[in-house]
């Protein structure tokens, strides 16, 4: 399978989206809305749930189910208020010392007029800085498209996992081909060059785990989270943060 085939799989219309992972892995999800500053961004959902009885804050990018829902959710391209809602929920998790689990799936942060007016760059920048210092465990799982800074804004974590057909990239293959070769048709070459597959991520040390996409997928994520989160919660805070710092310092 070529890198570009993986890109197409990661974008496939019938691919499970954020909410389906939340509902299959956690119990009793209670969605919490809004960034308390401007609006509620439906491209990012977040709230409280339990994992084997343990309270967890879950945050997911959500591309939507049917066409109407996709439009309402802006096809999973968050606006600044989506990132600010995510940060609000993470700070809430920090206060009550419960772990945070993020599901990442976006072609990128939305490139719109309003997004720029309301500080898309500033919102992402703040998340990166706050997540590196968040005094509670964070695990991020790339489930589909990991589109650049818009994906990273939910993926500064103690561990980052990726599904076997998900991708993670600094720029879309289309963007890369048109900038580099002024030829949008060369997307396949661009996808190869960018090294954006789950397997590349493992090789480059960007993720700790590649999760096979089979019937056991959600079961495996649940099992792995049930094992890891209590371990991370038990770590002294300084150690947790020092390890997270080192994780990103290594690049």
């Amino acid at each position, binding site marked *: 399978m070529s890198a570009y085939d993986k890109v197409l799989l990661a974008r496939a219309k019938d691919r499970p989206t954020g909410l389906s992972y939340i509902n299959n892995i956690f119990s009793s999800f209670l969605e919490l809305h809004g960034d308390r500053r401007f609006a509620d961004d439906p491209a990012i959902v977040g709230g409280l749930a339990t994992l084997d009885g343990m309270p967890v804050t879950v945050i997911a990018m959500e591309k939507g189910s049917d066409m109407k829902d996709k439009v309402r959710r802006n096809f999973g391209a968050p606006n600044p208020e989506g990132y600010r809602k995510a940060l609000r929920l993470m700070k809430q998790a920090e206060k009550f010392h419960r772990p945070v689990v993020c599901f990442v799936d976006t072609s990128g942060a939305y490139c719109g007029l309003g997004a720029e007016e309301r500080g898309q760059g500033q919102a992402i920048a703040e998340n990166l800085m706050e997540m590196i*210092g968040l005094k509670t465990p964070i695990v991020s799982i790339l489930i589909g498209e990991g589109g650049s800074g818009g994906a990273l804004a939910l993926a500064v974590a103690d561990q980052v996992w990726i599904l076997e057909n998900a991708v993670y990239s600094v720029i879309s293959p289309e963007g890369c081909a048109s900038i580099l070769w002024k030829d949008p048709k060369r997307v396949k070459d661009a996808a190869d060059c960018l090294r954006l597959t789950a397997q590349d991520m493992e090789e480059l040390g960007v993720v700790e785990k590649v999760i096979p996409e089979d019937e056991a997928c959600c079961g495996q994520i649940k099992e792995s989270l049930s094992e890891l989160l209590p371990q991370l919660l038990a770590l002294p805070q300084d150690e947790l943060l020092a390890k997270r710092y080192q994780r990103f310092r290594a690049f």
Partner: protein
Amino acid sequence: MNLMGLFRSPQNELEKGGKEAEDQGIRNSCPKCGVQLPITDLQENLNVCSACGYHFRIGPRERIFFVCDEGSFQELDGELMSRDLLDFPGYDQKLRNAKLASREKEGVLCGTARIEGLDCAVFCMDPNFMMGSMGTIVGEKITRLFEHATQCSLPVVGFTVSGGARMQEGILSLMQMAKTSAALKKHSDAGNFYLTVLTDPTLGGITASFAMDGDVIMAEPGATIGFAGARVIEQTIRKKLPQGFQTAEFLLEHGFVDLIVPRSEQKQAIAYLLRLHGQSPREEAAQ
């Protein structure tokens, strides 16, 4: 010959300046108002158009020359150079061209300096080196500068100019956004001051990381500052962008920049801010 010559030989007509340029009547036209400016006048005016105030893009050593006390700049990690980590087609050649165009080894210049006698750490990105794009070495140099500044309790003054993350290093460039943010968070948590000066252009992954994290965010007049590039936004929304969108003035109006300071007043403004954040001139400190 002005003092720029102490750092390196002039690389273009703009920098040659001096008597020779004057004799030959070398002029540079302002991209904004089109006025023909004699190179020597332009240089004396800090590369700002005397007719309309347009701020020309300048390289990092020129900027340091304008802002820092003469002879105070000590470069750090100047030997670090990018490698083609992912075997990306054409990257090696791009790096070679960038080195020729900028006469620098990488897209950011880092070091310590004094501004009106006040110690600080400084980084200046380089528009002539692949438009200041951030790969692993740009990220590493900025990270090391913040770590050094944290260790020595120094404020950091950072001049940003960048098209964003460097795509030729793929995901490793993206990781630099997290790495630099981590280092500046430690610097900030230790109570140190960080000032960013956003210059034309500051875009993409730079806006979405250390450019927007300053305790105080200054911008140069007219600078383009944003997350997405104008062309990408126009393609997304299928509309023309309004006049003045994503300028420093637009960001000020929308609350994302603290103040706009023309180049001629930057040194004084930066020194004032450093003083207010506990720096005292070196002579006094030594007593």
